[in-house]
Every structure is written in structure tokens, then in C-alpha cells.
């Protein structure tokens, strides 16, 4: 049976063993537990294509996915929906109306895959298979005149897609 004094001594010993000063001189308890390799998850797709999953799809199958999953909010043509316009717009928009579509504004095609897989369809995010995401991404790139209808997109192909407005993006930060 521990005495209260024993408890204090034990607690003190634990702190002494675990606490390590951080560079700002603050002792922290260092309670982080090791994240095992099988526990490391990420759905980030990077602009160089890193993070893109296996799988593939083209605009023909993508049109079917779009009709079932996207059309209700984004419209039959991608231009006439109740929510964000996905198709059209003038590259390098400088004045209103500012149609910031994949074709006219977005700098990276990889961001489109990342976003569709991450957050769409709005009511059931995460419900599309990777093949379906590739397909609907291919469909949107085709409708924006970026790729041919029969191009099958996979990780390698999508990484190579250049969007027309890419060169107009810049930053004070050094970017790869």
C-alpha cells in the first residue's frame, strides 16, 4: 500500500525520467505515443503526384459518375448548377465574373483529385472508389478542354497534366 509520500516520490521519479526540455526551455511531459507504420494514414495528394493511389479512369466512365454524384449540385454541363461552377471561364481571369474553374484558374490537377476524394460528394464524402475519382477527374479535365476524352488517367498520367493557368501563380515562399 502506497503512502501519500510514496505516491509523490513515484510521480516525481516519472517526471524526472520523461520530462525533457524543449529548445525554448520548457519542460514538457512528452506523452506522444509511437505511431506504428500501419497507423500512419494520409490522403494528401502532392503537386508532384506523390500520394496518388493505384487505379484509373477516363472521361467516358467519369460522365456516368458525374451524372450520379455531382450533377445535382454542379449542373448538367458543370456550368449551370446551384453550387460552384466547374467548367468554363476565361483563363487568367482579371475581372468579374471571376469563374475560378479547374480550366480557368486552378494551378494543379493533383489538387482536383485530392479535393474530390477528400470532400466530395458533399453529402457522402469518401464514398467514391479511387477508380471513380480518377474517372470523374478525367471527365472534368476533358470538359475543360485540358485532356482528350479517351485518355485513361492514373497516377502517372495525372501527374503529367498541366493546367493552363499554372504559370500565373506565384508566391513569396520558395516552392519546389
Amino acid at each position, binding site marked *: 500500500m502506497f503512502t501519500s509520500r510514496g505516491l509523490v516520490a513515484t510521480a516525481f521519479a516519472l517526471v524526472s525520467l520523461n520530462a525533457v526540455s524543449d529548445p525554448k526551455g520548457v519542460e514538457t511531459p512528452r506523452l506522444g505515443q509511437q505511431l506504428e507504420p500501419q497507423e500512419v494514414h494520409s490522403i*494528401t495528394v502532392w503537386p508532384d503526384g506523390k500520394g496518388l493511389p493505384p487505379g484509373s479512369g477516363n472521361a467516358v466512365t467519369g460522365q456516368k459518375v458525374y451524372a450520379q454524384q455531382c450533377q445535382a449540385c454542379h449542373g448538367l454541363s458543370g456550368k449551370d448548377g446551384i453550387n460552384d461552377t466547374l467548367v468554363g471561364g476565361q483563363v487568367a481571369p482579371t475581372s468579374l465574373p471571376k469563374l475560378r474553374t479547374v480550366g480557368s484558374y486552378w494551378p494543379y490537377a493533383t489538387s482536383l483529385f485530392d479535393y474530390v476524394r477528400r470532400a466530395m460528394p458533399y453529402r457522402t464524402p469518401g464514398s467514391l472508389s479511387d477508380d471513380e475519382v480518377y474517372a470523374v477527374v478525367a471527365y472534368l479535365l476533358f470538359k475543360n478542354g485540358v485532356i482528350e476524352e479517351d485518355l485513361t488517367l492514373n497516377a502517372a498520367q495525372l501527374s503529367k497534366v498541366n493546367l493552363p493557368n499554372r504559370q500565373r501563380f506565384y508566391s513569396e515562399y520558395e516552392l519546389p
Partner: protein
Amino acid sequence: MAKKQPANPIANSAGNGLLDRRLFLTGGLASLGIALSPVVNASESTINRARKPWMQSPGRALGDYGQPSQHEAAVVREGRTSQVGTLGSGASRTPLQDLQGTITPSGLHFERHHSGIPDIHPEQLQLSVQGLVKQPLKFSLNDLARYPLTTKTYFLECSGNSAVNLGPNPALLTCGGIHGLVSASEWTGVPVSYLLDEAGIDSKAKWVVAEGADAARMNRSIPLDKMLDDALLALYQNGERLRPEQGYPVRLLLPGYEGNTSVKWLHRLEVSAQPAMSRQETSKYTDLNLDGRAEMFTFEMGVKSAITSPSGNQQLTGKGYYEISGLAWSGYGPVRKVDVSADGGKTWAAAQLEEPILDKSLTRFRIPWHWDGTPCTLLSRAADAQNHQPTRAQYTKAKGTSGFYHYNAMQAWRIEADGGIHNVYV
């Protein structure tokens, strides 16, 4: 020979009735002939022993969680809008014109969500620190709460705040309706640097991608230097655990940065050599310039101010004394100065800044004013150590009107002869 009159210490400090900001301190109101009558007439209060209804019986019971007076029920978030067909993908604004001081009541903090407000059980949230680190780590909420905590007061501002003033005609909205995507809170949490140091940062690391656990898994790339400098994992807001709409149980809080980067419902920090170029930091939250080029990663919110009282859609009740009061802030550091004009920008007077003037927080400014009953235009302009708030004309000349984000030009309020007040461009 007539003696020269000593300078009047309470002379007007700028045109159209702006008085010296130290008026109250010097007791100058009385010498101006403005009578300060006592609130209750003493002789009447001793004679009149009648009790008001609320004094005739005990009041209501003690309560578990206090609410504002029922007589303040009209003070609510305003301008609530969500994308068509959704209820939680949009924004609601702080009613700045109804509030005083600098701390925003938690329930009136502005909201901006991309896929509604998730209901997260605190025991089920795990924060992962992974990517370019020596040892990927996971933390439970209980773990985080055991770290040495830091409390700081910071403003948070959506970078789309005030953008309605880029429109061709001034919108006839309240101050909150125009500028209410800014709020300030006392935030308590764990410096992000503690966890990054514990995981061990790889020498190639330059960015950290923060991801939320909402349905949109909203993510932003943050420079590693910012994360190591003053980034906070906020657990508490104004003394209590975060409100669900502010990221319960843990959010990122990046002082001075555009609000979107302070990712709510945080569950993952991914250390990397490059930014993710997520949708939010490319197709949204980038600054479109006049030449068609768009700047990415414009994080700091520029220096800004707005008069909250008197302000749009309020009503002056007749000529005479008013206090002009408002808020100023900058994502670059403490507010250094606020000037106020009551003649459309022709002349300016320095407003009193209320202490404490905190770094990257809201600062309250005040200046007394005597309205002569004629139409006029009120303006405020703020400055920090390096930057001056631009006029609307200066801003739109430099940046155009299509950029949408980071609009920080001066707000003008037109006061009509009947005391009505509305938004105006000067």
C-alpha cells in the same frame, strides 16, 4: 494691449466636431457646457418608495449555464449564409456594432465552415504528427491537456472579411454585416512547437499540412517556421473548452494569419518539404491581381480598422455629444495608431487606444465627438509599426476589385441629417 488667450486644452482636435481624445481625463466636458446630470435624482429616489415589479418578489433561480438577458435576444450572429442546398457550408458574422471591449463572446464568434460542424467525442479524437519527423507520434486529447499550457488573446479574421466593400455599390449593411468575420478570444492551449520537437523535425522539412476531422477534411499548408514560432493547439476559448463551431476539441490557432489556416477539429499534422497545394490554398484563398496573376500563401491579415459605433443602419437621436468607438487590428503586430475623421477624410484626429494594446489582437479606440446635426462622413484609419490602412481608392487602384481576399481599406459611414447612417464609398 489684449493678453493672448492660453490655448484651449479641449479645443477641437479635427474638423466637424471631433474633440480631444483626452476629454474625459481632463474633465473638459463640463467646461464645454455639456451638462453631466446624475443618473438618479437623489431627492426623488428617497421619496419614491414604490417598487418596480422586479423588486417586489425574489428573482429567478440559480442556473447551470448563464445566458444573456432576454432583453438582448436581438444580439445574435448576422448575415448567416450557406451554400445552396446546405446548412453548414458558409459563414455567420459577429455583430460588432452591438459589442464593446475587445473580447468576442464565444457564442457570437464568427463562423466559417466548409462542411458543417462535426460532433466529436473528445476521447475519440487522436492527433497525429507524421511525415518528415524522426518519430511519428499520436496524442489523445487527455495527453494534450497535460502539457504546459499557454494563454494568449488573439483576433481571428476570415480573409474574405469586408470583401462586400469591393462591390460596385456600397451594401447597406451593419458594421458586423460588412466586417463581422473578425472576432477575438482568449485562447489557451499547447504550443505546436512542443509536439514537433518531441517528434523530431527532419532537416528537409519546411511546411506542415494541417488537416481537420470535419466531413471536408479541410487542409492547409503552413510554413514550419510559423508552427515553431507562435502556433497554438487551442483547447480553451475564453476560459472554457472550445465551442463545437470553433473546432472542439482542438484547433490550430495561427496568430495574425488568415482564419482559414487555423484549422478546426484538428486531427493531423503532416510535416513536409513542400506545400500540398490543396484546393483551399490554390483555387480559393489566393489573391488575384490586376494583371491576372494570383499570389499564393498570403497569410498575414493587413492592418485594418472600422468604427463600430456609430455605424451602418444605426440611428443618431439628435445633435450633440457622441463617443465614436471602433476596433483596429493587424496580423503583423500591435496597432500603433488610429485616426478618425468626421469630415470625409479632410481632417483627422488621433483616437484614444484602450490598453492593453496586444500583439495580433483587437484594440478598442475611442474619441469624443459633437455632432452639429448636418450630414457628414465618418472614417477611421489604423497603422501598425510598418503598415498604414489604405483608402478604398488606393486599395482598388493597386489590387483591383476581383481579388476578394485580404480587403483592408478604410470604412466610411455616411450620417444623414435625420441621423440615419449607411455604408458609403469616399
